[in-house]
């Protein structure tokens, strides 16, 4: 039986657009769920995805991908590969699952919103595949750690994390709710698929898969590679959305959506990917520093894409380049010092060889960040590891929800003041870690003003008793789940036997 080439029937079967007559446009596409930004309905019908796929092709491809990942997992889960991985890599993987697995399900909800409220049939078709993609990613990244629970109890946090008020999870939820879970379809196409997936995670997943293979974690490498191929496809929903907005004279809308989310994504990226690349990945497996990765892949590609669409660099670009020198070093230091408050076992990653590498990649690191580790290392060697543990809390930013590390930027010579940005809004005081974080808040105060940071909750009496044990319980961390030094203080040199845990 003769078959038509796909190109001869694809657009016809895909483009189920029609004029509404029984209900209004706003009833079918409520602005809260699908903000058109004033672009007429018919203009949206020009939306055309660059990568086309039919449902039967999709199912065939995905079945093959799933078969690959699950069979690799089935074999490797019976091996002792996990036990023999470096502690830093294990920490990175455990942190990844907790931060990402359930967020993938949430991204599926976002994609489903675009599958219903996207402004063109072609877009809704693409987003349907995106919904299935993200559901698959959520399933994979909960199934694989679940299968390995007997080897690694901390994998419980792949599912548990987003059901707690752990501080890093509060930060991730705050970002992802804004980006997709509580976002309208048009904004989401630009903020989730273009800014976050095209801008950050697509390339990050490529690098992470390669790093996993180098570190000997073939299970994780196969998983991340499989996910990345889906991301590369559904991330392309952003490009045609920007084109429609730009053609309608709404480039400023696209620019604003992009600027706000690029900064927000940067902050969480600096936390999770920053410590993973520069401190947790074993030295012999590193191919580049976090700053080099940002420079060569994220920033360069992003600028190229901005230019392709006639958009400009965000106004805070110089501040972004500035933060790339110091922010993630400060976050890593904070995560290590407040390690009982995270679900993985942070490694310091500052042994002599690592410090030499850090100094090479970040000239001046020893004089700026190394001095903190000098003091902490001396305390450990003196038999006082308790001095490397917290008795209070870091103040967190009311925008990114991450510790306010302006003093680190100042001490390292990158900021003119150690002071945070403090703003009064409707009689309440808000603290921000940077000018762009303050700007993100001030662009949408009605969206963010009601949120309480972990510190606001402490001061509001939500956390009882209002001390470290009370906060750990509030964050869902039992004593057995609290993070400890991932290498048992090996980084500090000769340590009194009593300091070691075993």
């Amino acid at each position, binding site marked *: 039986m003769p078959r038509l080439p796909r190109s001869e029937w694809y657009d016809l079967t895909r483009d189920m657009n029609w004029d509404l007559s029984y209900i209004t446009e706003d009833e079918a596409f409520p602005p809260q769920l699908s903000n058109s930004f004033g672009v007429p309905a018919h203009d949206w019908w020009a939306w055309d995805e660059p990568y086309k796929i039919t449902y039967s092709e999709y199912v065939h491809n995905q079945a093959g991908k799933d078969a690959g990942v699950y069979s690799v997992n089935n074999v490797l889960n019976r091996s002792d590969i996990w036990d023999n991985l470096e502690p830093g890599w294990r920490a990175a993987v455990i942190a990844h699952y907790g931060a990402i697995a359930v967020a993938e399900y949430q991204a599926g909800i976002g994609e489903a919103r675009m599958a219903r409220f996207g402004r063109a049939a072609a877009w809704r078709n693409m987003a349907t595949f995106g919904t299935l993609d993200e559901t698959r990613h959520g399933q994979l990244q909960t199934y694989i750690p679940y299968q390995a629970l007997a080897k690694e109890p901390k994998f419980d946090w792949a599912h548990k994390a987003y059901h707690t008020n752990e501080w890093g999870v509060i930060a991730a939820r705050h970002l992802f709710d804004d980006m997709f879970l509580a976002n309208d379809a048009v904004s989401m196409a630009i903020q989730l698929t273009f800014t976050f997936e095209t801008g950050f995670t697509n390339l990050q997943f490529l690098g992470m898969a390669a790093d996993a293979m180098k570190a000997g974690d073939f299970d994780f490498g196969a998983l991340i590679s499989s996910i990345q191929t889906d991301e590369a496809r559904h991330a392309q929903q952003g490009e045609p959305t920007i084109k429609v907005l730009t053609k309608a004279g709404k480039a400023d809308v696209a620019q604003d959506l992009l600027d706000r989310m690029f900064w927000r994504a940067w902050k969480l990226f600096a936390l999770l990917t920053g410590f993973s690349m520069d401190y947790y990945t074993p030295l012999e497996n590193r191919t580049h520093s976090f700053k080099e990765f940002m420079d060569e892949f994220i920033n360069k590609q992003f600028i190229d894409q901005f230019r392709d669409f006639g958009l400009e660099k965000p106004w805070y670009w110089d501040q972004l380049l500035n933060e790339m020198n110091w922010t993630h070093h400060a976050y890593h230091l904070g995560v290590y010092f407040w390690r009982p408050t995270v679900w993985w076992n942070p490694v310091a990653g500052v042994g002599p060889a690592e410090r030499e590498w850090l100094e090479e990649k970040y000239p001046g690191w020893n004089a700026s960040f190394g001095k903190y580790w000098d003091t902490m290392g001396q305390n450990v060697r003196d038999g006082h590891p308790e001095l490397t543990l917290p008795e209070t809390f870091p103040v967190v930013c009311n925008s990114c929800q991450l510790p306010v590390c302006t003093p680190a930027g100042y001490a390292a010579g990158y900021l003119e003041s150690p002071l945070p940005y403090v703003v009064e809004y409707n009689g309440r005081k808000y603290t921000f870690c940077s000018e762009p974080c303050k700007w993100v808040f001030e662009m949408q105060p009605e969206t963010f003003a009601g949120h309480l940071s972990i510190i606001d909750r402490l*001061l509001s009496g939500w956390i009882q008793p209002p001390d470290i044990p009370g906060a750990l319980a509030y964050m869902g961390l039992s004593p057995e789940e609290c993070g400890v030094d991932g290498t048992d203080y090996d980084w500090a040199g000769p340590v009194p036997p009593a300091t070691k845990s075993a």
Partner: protein
Amino acid sequence: MAPFPVQGITEGDFVVVLALVDSEQPMSEVAQAIAYHGVGKRVAAQDRPLRVRYQGDLLPDDATIETAGIAPMDVLEAVYA
């Protein structure tokens, strides 16, 4: 006398911390209460007195939270003077 939360920065430290001080404590003690969370832990101790800087000005050692007009969660710096 009441516990009073401030945002504390110890000179040379990397992070802003939540510090609980007392509303009637003199600034010499407030400086110590802030620095307690940084000095000797991440920042090497110095053999110099610590003072409190607020909105760019060094406060007298005998000033208190109340007399200096400091509000909850204002930012105070513990600096070596």
